[in-house]
């Protein structure tokens, strides 16, 4: 099992997002006043300022907005912005690709997958090519 650097708590804005990963859910927020999507998570709407937000669950499908492969002595890995179909952009990674520098590019379809960690109950949402 992987052992990624982990989110740390208490951190009240992001804690509900990470709690949802334990249920295999990719959570985002929507403003009950102006209907704007809110991501990354926070306690107010960043379009209108309202504190009245609802949690929603994404289908976890989207496209790579941008991707870079970091050259690392422990193995190269990708970092990516994913544009989810619901309309929010998440910073994450794309896993399970041979030669990622050659085979990953903007515009590819991806789907979320929840990756268990050795030392945490939280699951890390990563993406795979569809």
């Amino acid at each position, binding site marked *: 099992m992987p052992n990624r*650097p982990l*989110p740390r708590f208490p951190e009240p804005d992001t804690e509900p997002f990470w709690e949802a990963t334990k249920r295999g859910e990719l959570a985002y927020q929507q403003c009950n006043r102006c209907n704007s999507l809110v991501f990354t998570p926070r306690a107010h709407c960043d379009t209108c300022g309202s504190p009245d937000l609802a949690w929603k669950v994404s289908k976890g499908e989207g496209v790579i907005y941008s991707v870079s492969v970091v*050259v690392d002595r422990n193995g190269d890995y990708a970092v990516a*912005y994913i544009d989810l179909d619901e309309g929010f*952009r998440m910073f994450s990674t794309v896993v399970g690709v041979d030669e990622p520098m050659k085979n990953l590019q903007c515009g590819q379809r991806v789907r979320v997958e929840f990756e268990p960690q050795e030392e945490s109950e939280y699951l890390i949402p990563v993406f795979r090519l569809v």
Partner: protein
Amino acid sequence: MPNQARTAAIVGIHEWPKRLDPDVSAMQIKAASISRALDDAGLTWKDVDGLYDANDGEGGGGLGMAAYLGIKPTVIDTTSVGGSSYEFLAAHSLADIAAGKCNVAVMAHGGKTATQKFATGNRFANSPQPPSWQSNMEVPFRNTTVSSYALVAARHMYQYGTRPEDFAEISATTRYHAMRNPEAVQAMTDLLFADIREITVDDVLNSRMIASPLHLLECCLISDGGGAVVIAAADVARNTKKKPVWVIGNGQATKYRENGGDVTVSAAAQSGPIAFGEALLRPDELDIAMIYDSFSITVACILEDLGFCKKGEFGDYVKGGRLRFDQKGGPALNTDGGALSSNHPGFRGLFLLMEATRQLRGESTSQVPGAKLAVAHGNGGLLGHTHAAGTIILAAD
């Protein structure tokens, strides 16, 4: 016709000559640089009544810096927005001078990034700081400084058909200038650069990949160093030792990750038009472009966003060395060698103001004959992520 307002000017500068300097503190660099910048202007310690500080250095900041210097300024501004802090502070000093709150403003930077082997580049900090709303959404994916910028470069290539050689031209141009600056050459020597010479586009593309699509020679170096700038009111500036360099336009802005946003557009697209509007100038009228070159992509986006060329077209614009100091058809870019080839102790925005000043005084090692107008554009934070942009337009008499 540029703005004729002559409210405040850069009257003194000092750049710390060494880029690897284990035996001094950042605070010593700041204080000594202020002293020498005041000498450069023909002013004294006692003349200083405005302290502008970016909270850098050991025990610095608005609280510590005045005590360390031993001054009692009437204005203390501690805006700290990373690399562009000094473009913000210069703008604030202009406003305070215009309002009569102070007459002689100092701002200094000191950094020990090389000596401290500060974890940048592809290392991600396992930060001892408390978690934040931003860090918790990023830490598991091991984002790095370089990959933050690489994501912008990758999108730029996808969106506009930009080629790797377009980015590489920026590094080659900057090195061309660095090789004419003895302090930059010494810096590369002290920082153990291999094969110190002018570089070609192919050299850049053959250097190792750090985070695709960015190669080693597209990333700034990491150095010690610093310096100071003195900005004074017009009646003071008319009587200083060197030619005053007037601040004739300024703009500030911020940008951050947004759902559906375009990461190839930086905050310069907002700060630039404000600054050029105040100065009543178009980008193509400028002789000098001092653009924050943390990475090749930073310069690419900012050149476009400031309006030197259309969005997505910087590659054609910089092609063939157009932005070298001895070429026509565009401003001279980062004539001190920039962060890519001269120094980057931390907040590099101060060096943009200093080299622009040297050019408008006729003191650069890559001097553009008769240079009259310059832009210094700082980008603090991370391009494509949360960043703050400060644009300053400068004019010689």
